C-alpha cells in the first residue's frame, strides 16, 4: 500500500491568486495523478504527473492554469493559477501502488475561492 499526504487540507483564497498543493507519497511510485471533485460528485482527472517530463493533461485542462511538477518518484505539486470562484473544489492526489493494480488517494485539499 501507499500512504499519501496532501497539504494544505483546506484553504480560502482570493480570486486572482495562485495556490500550490503538495502531494507526498511514502514510497516510490511510477504513476501519480491529480483529480478535481465537487462535494458529493465523482472525480474528474486533471492530469497525469510524469516524473522528469511535462504532465499529460486531460481535455479541458491546460498547463497554464494547472501547472504540475513531479521532481521525483515520491512527490508532486499542483498549482491552481489565477483562481476564480469556479475553481472552488476538492483537489485530490493519487498514486498507483507498486503493482500498478490499485490507486491510493490523499485526503484532498478543499479549496474555496472568494
Amino acid at each position, binding site marked *: 500500500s501507499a500512504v*499519501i499526504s496532501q497539504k494544505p487540507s483546506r484553504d480560502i483564497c482570493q480570486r486572482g491568486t495562485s495556490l500550490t498543493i503538495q502531494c507526498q507519497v511514502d514510497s516510490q511510485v511510477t*504513476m501519480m*495523478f491529480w483529480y478535481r471533485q465537487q462535494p*458529493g*460528485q*465523482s*472525480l*474528474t*482527472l486533471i492530469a*497525469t504527473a510524469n516524473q522528469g517530463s511535462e504532465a499529460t493533461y*486531460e*481535455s479541458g485542462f491546460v498547463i497554464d492554469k494547472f501547472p504540475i511538477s513531479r521532481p521525483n518518484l515520491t512527490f508532486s505539486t499542483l498549482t491552481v493559477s489565477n483562481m476564480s470562484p469556479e475553481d472552488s473544489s476538492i483537489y*485530490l492526489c*493519487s498514486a498507483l501502488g507498486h503493482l500498478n*493494480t*490499485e*490507486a*491510493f*488517494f*490523499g*485526503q*484532498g485539499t478543499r479549496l474555496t475561492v472568494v
Partner: protein
Amino acid sequence: TQLLEQSPQFLSIQEGENLTVYCNSSSVFSSLQWYRQEPGEGPVLLVTVVTGGEVKKLKRLTFQFGDARKDSSLHITAAQPGDTGLYLCAEYGNKLVFGAGTILRVKS
C-alpha cells in the same frame, strides 16, 4: 475515453435493506474497479474485476462483471449505516477514469 454511467445517482434506504448499484459503459472495460469514499477522505479500493462473468464477494458486498465486460454491479446485502458513502466505479487502464458515482445513505 469511454463514458461510464452509474445508477442510481442517489439511494436512501433503511438499515437491513438490500441494494444494487450499476455501472455501464459504451465499450468494453479493460478492467473495472469499485471504490468507496467517505466524506473528507479519498476513495478506497473495494475490488477489481477483470474477467467477464466474474463474481467477487467482500463480506456483505457482491460484485459482478458482465459477460461482455461492458457492465458491472455492486450488491449490498442487509445494508448498515456504516455502508453510507459515495460508491464509484472506475475503468482501470493506464489511468483511472471514474463513473458519476452513487451516493448511498443508510438510515438506522
